[in-house]
């Protein structure tokens, strides 16, 4: 197994760091899957996560100037690691003015992702910083747990309102209730509702637009709302992590079952699944 990547462009480094920082806010531990063309940050659905799962895909060519990898074998040309994104984020954040940043898979006291950078200095010798982030290699027999999730058979698919707006609403709703109902229909309407003994609050969004997936949703009554009751903290955690406005943000709802959030940036796509609670 071998992996070596190099980032020279400052904007790419910045963007890469922001993606990793977003991931670090969503989960403490993530699986990193490396293929010749892509990097994936994956959180698989487990009881420990509360059923939440995440799939983040980066096209390596958009970030790295050099990218070489050799997987476990020629047939299984991938590398699967478990890493704490927070450590990566912390390492990258202070290296934003590096002349060049290199990431490689190494074996120090344990398998590590070694991030090393040359920082500019006033003297002739550049300052070298190295961070060794410990990782766990995931054996091939477990790789099936980290496959790309299927698009759920959704009832409603709708574009999200600006994330910042939703975040503000959800932050305030969190003070009142632990559960939030998200409902939407194919006419571009979405409601966020909470209900307690004393009060119920609903925020209405309209004219959001529905993504044109084809004719899957055409049989459905446009006004009919599909809804899912969510643990509000999970939705809040997702929203808190977002640092950049995505090019496209949409939500697929499976009635009483699942909320599937998809954020698309130019070179990164992030999918987040929040299961509904009773």
């Amino acid at each position, binding site marked *: 197994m071998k992996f070596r990547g190099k980032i020279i462009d400052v904007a790419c480094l910045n963007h890469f760091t922001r993606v990793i920082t977003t991931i670090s806010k969503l989960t403490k531990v993530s699986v990193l899957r490396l293929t010749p063309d892509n990097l994936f940050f994956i959180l698989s659905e487990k009881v420990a996560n509360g059923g939440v799962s995440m799939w983040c895909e980066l096209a390596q060519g958009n970030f790295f100037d050099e990218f070489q990898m050799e997987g476990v074998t020629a047939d299984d040309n991938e590398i699967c690691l478990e890493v704490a994104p927070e450590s990566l984020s*912390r390492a990258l954040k202070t290296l934003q003015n590096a002349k060049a940043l290199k990431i490689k898979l190494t074996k120090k006291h344990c398998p590590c992702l070694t991030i090393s950078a040359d920082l500019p200095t006033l003297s002739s010798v550049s*300052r070298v910083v190295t961070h060794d982030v410990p990782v766990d*290699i995931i054996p091939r027999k477990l790789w099936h747990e980290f496959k790309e999730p299927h698009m759920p058979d959704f009832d409603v698919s709708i574009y999200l309102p600006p994330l910042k707006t939703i975040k503000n609403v959800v932050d305030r709703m969190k003070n009142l209730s632990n559960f939030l109902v998200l409902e939407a229909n194919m006419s571009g309407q979405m409601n966020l509702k909470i209900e307690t003994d004393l009060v119920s609050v609903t925020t209405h969004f309209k004219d959001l637009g529905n993504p044109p997936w084809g004719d899957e949703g055409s049989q459905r009554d446009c006004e009919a709302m599909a809804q899912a009751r969510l643990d509000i903290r999970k939705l809040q955690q997702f929203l808190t992590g977002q640092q950049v406005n995505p090019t496209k943000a949409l939500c697929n709802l499976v009635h009483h079952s699942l909320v599937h959030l998809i954020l698309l940036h130019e070179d990164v796509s992030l999918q987040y699944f929040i299961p509904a609670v009773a």
Partner: protein
Amino acid sequence: MDCVVTGGNVKVLAKAVQSLSRIGDELYVEPQEDGLALRSVNSSRSAYACFLFAPLFFSRYTTDSGHCFRCKMAIKSVQAVFRSLATLEKNVERCHVKLDEQKSRLTFTLHCKHGLLKTHNLSFQDSESLQAVFDKDASANIFKAQPRLLVDTVVHFPPSLEEVTLTVSEDRMWFKNHVEEDAEPSKSMLTELCLSSDEFDHFSVQSKNSITFCLKELRGLLLFAESIGLPISIHFDEPGCPVVLSVTDTVLEGNFVLATLSDDNNLHKNNSSQPPPPPPDDFMNDDMDSYLIAMDTSVVPGPSSRPEPSRLAAENHRTHDSDEEDGSEHMDGPPNKKFCSLFFGSVLPPPSQMSTQPITTQEVLASDSEDETQLE
């Protein structure tokens, strides 16, 4: 004692108090003939800091000459006087500090703009003397750098990091985080930074070795030095002997004395007293990496792995250090390593000593109660 601090020096005083608060919970105040000494020490006696403000720092400075006075007070109370440092500069014209021994009070009066007077009466306790004996000019390794260099170095390490290891060779200095031996090795992130001697104002190495000390306490000094803009000097000898970091100006002198890790146990591979070979600084050469990382192969560290700092044998300690260690408060940590407590003592300092140690000191710092101190 009666003194007045004017203008920008109020902020300097406030910053000094703030950086002392990073060391310990109590501020030891000792007005001396040669200036006002403010000191602090941490509970395990492994870090000591002292700021000496010369009479010229003040617009007025009067002390009761011949009468040796010492007191201590909660440092939080003094910090409360200088709260909101950002506005201090703009609002405070001068600060008057007056000692009232009868009432055991130290009064801080801030004369602010628009005729506003803020008076703080802080009560103090009598205290034993607090002196650390050290001779930084005799250190084997002496460095001087602008605070920005060290601030930029320290930023790469997490704020929660306890200890950092500093290794020197004749033209390089490495900082890396120190991982406890008994901590799970696979869980800790390791960070290493290499500085070249070019980046320092002064770089003189007579003894190539490594020292490990607490980073948190260093940050206190960096805070002060960066805001005031003074270069920092670093002095050290061997592991086990304290490292002294200081800032100097014509009117003030600050010294932070931090204990360093000494390892009596020679279990580690580098038993020799030779300094470790410096880690290869050729990070541009990728071929050095260990190539195959299969899950079940054994570890063969490549040349890019970092050597452990050498552990010098116990006999390298000065004998009075070990006396002090026995008497000092016990350090946390596994029994095979301990921080040397700083040597607080009644040794008459030679004339070359820095002025924060008046020759009249004969006190031994008691580790527990004040009953044991002997008054002059």
